[in-house]
């Protein structure tokens, strides 16, 4: 790893490993799940060895994702608490999406968009897990009534759709904001990156407060 001298650590090794386990599982879930959501995507089940295999393996990926997400939650919930800066940042969302960063107020370690991704997933993953268990034919096919399963399958597909949208935004934002991907693969950002995108976090690190996030400012 050719890490520049003054680089700032954004994600620790544990952060990154957990994130990518999560990402791989999520992609596998999306591919296998979409294969039995719409017939034009049924070919995706071929990636898993056919329809029966995709059907069999999808719920197990889901169980693993829940465990992985617990790890993500424990590591990241604190830095995703909303604070006063988020109101100001959100108001300037038009400047954010047009790269007009001079008119975007400074923000801490995560901006409101990143926090929304985190909380959306925190809401959607348990929803998907519970509704998924109810329609897991092999083990829970007889556990609940058919009307309950019908509701569960609808909730499951709506929640999955929501999660896929959040995921697309998340992936695109990582590509759009250059060098974000490197922070999640190699763990570091340059001081200029931190200064440009997360100025309050930059000053926090610079003034030696280390990675610990600021305590809640709300009274």
């Amino acid at each position, binding site marked *: 790893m050719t890490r520049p001298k003054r680089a700032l650590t954004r994600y620790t090794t544990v952060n990154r490993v957990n994130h990518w386990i999560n990402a791989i599982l999520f992609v596998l879930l999306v591919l296998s799940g979409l294969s039995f959501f719409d017939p034009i995507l049924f070919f995706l089940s071929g990636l898993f060895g056919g329809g029966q295999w995709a*059907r069999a393996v999808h719920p197990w990926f889901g169980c693993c994702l829940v465990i992985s997400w617990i790890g993500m939650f424990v590591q990241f919930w604190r830095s995703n608490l909303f604070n006063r800066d988020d109101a100001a940042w959100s108001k300037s969302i038009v400047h954010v999406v047009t790269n007009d960063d001079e008119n975007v107020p400074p923000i801490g370690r995560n901006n409101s968009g990143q926090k929304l991704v985190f909380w959306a997933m925190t809401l959607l993953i348990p929803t998907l897990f519970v509704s998924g268990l109810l329609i897991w034919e092999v083990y829970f096919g007889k556990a609940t009534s058919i009307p309950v399963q019908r509701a569960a399958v609808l909730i499951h597909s709506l929640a999955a759709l929501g999660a896929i949208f959040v995921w697309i935004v998340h992936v695109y934002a990582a590509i759009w904001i250059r060098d974000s991907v490197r922070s999640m693969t190699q763990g570091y950002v340059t001081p200029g990156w931190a200064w440009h995108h997360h100025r309050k976090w930059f000053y926090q690190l610079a003034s030696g407060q280390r990675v610990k996030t600021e305590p809640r400012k709300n009274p």
Partner: protein
Amino acid sequence: MSDLQSQDYVRRSATTLTPPMARNHEDQVAKLIDVSRCIGCKACQSACMEWNDLRPEIGHFEGSYENPNDLGPSVWTLMKFAEYENEQGNLEWLIRKDGCMHCEDPGCLKACPAPGAIVQYANGIVDFISDKCIGCGYCVKGCPFDVPRISKTDHKSYKCTLCSDRVTVGLEPACVKACPTGAIMFGSKTDMHRQAGERIEDLKSRGFEKAGLYDPAEVGGTHVMYVLHHADKPSLYSGLPDEPRISPTVRVWKGILKPLAVIGIAAAVIGSFFHWVTIGPNEVRDEDEAEADRALREIEEEEKTP
């Protein structure tokens, strides 16, 4: 059933294109079950097991004539016995042969995600092509009659085929052949309607004023129909649905949501791409690095000077 290069599909699950339907000049068939003539002998159940080579596991006696207790992956038809006390205080033993109703608008087929795992032939029979079944259980959610059952051994869904293999070669279904009282009839749907009409007239003349035909319009009619003495209350017959319909939940899920979701996902991806093309990446410039350097130096100096 085995798929002998069928070219007479009118519906095929999870298929957006027209299925092979060249040989569609066929009569709509129907099985007519005259509940009033059924004596509950279970010959139909035995015939079904015999023809289809099904041997369900021996279960337990649960205090009812129903045996086995429920439809299953190897129980495709089942006599259901209901004891009903009528308004006059007399006991009526309502026996109904339960199994797939072969809906004209099949909920199982609508819900099925595996291309070609559920088909409807031009004669109206709804059949599971087990080879293509992935065992997800969506047909169970789609069915308004609670009929399909998933095997724990091979993870395939099973139900009555209306002996599609026999019907194809001009034979009647096994249960029809076995019925000793002629309570089960088979033929074209028009003929069966006529037959039912005669039976209903007869029943009415014998005091069953509410006698009628069960061919529920909510699912477009069915290819298995009942003559009921109490057609006003089908649920008396071991929970035969009064108004069977494909659940609205299933309609939303496999109707509107399915195409909208795919379009929505595609739009999000395309939208992102065009954001990249029009507005482009947000890059850190050298000035940012210089500013950051300056800021870092300032802080260091501040910390040095007490």
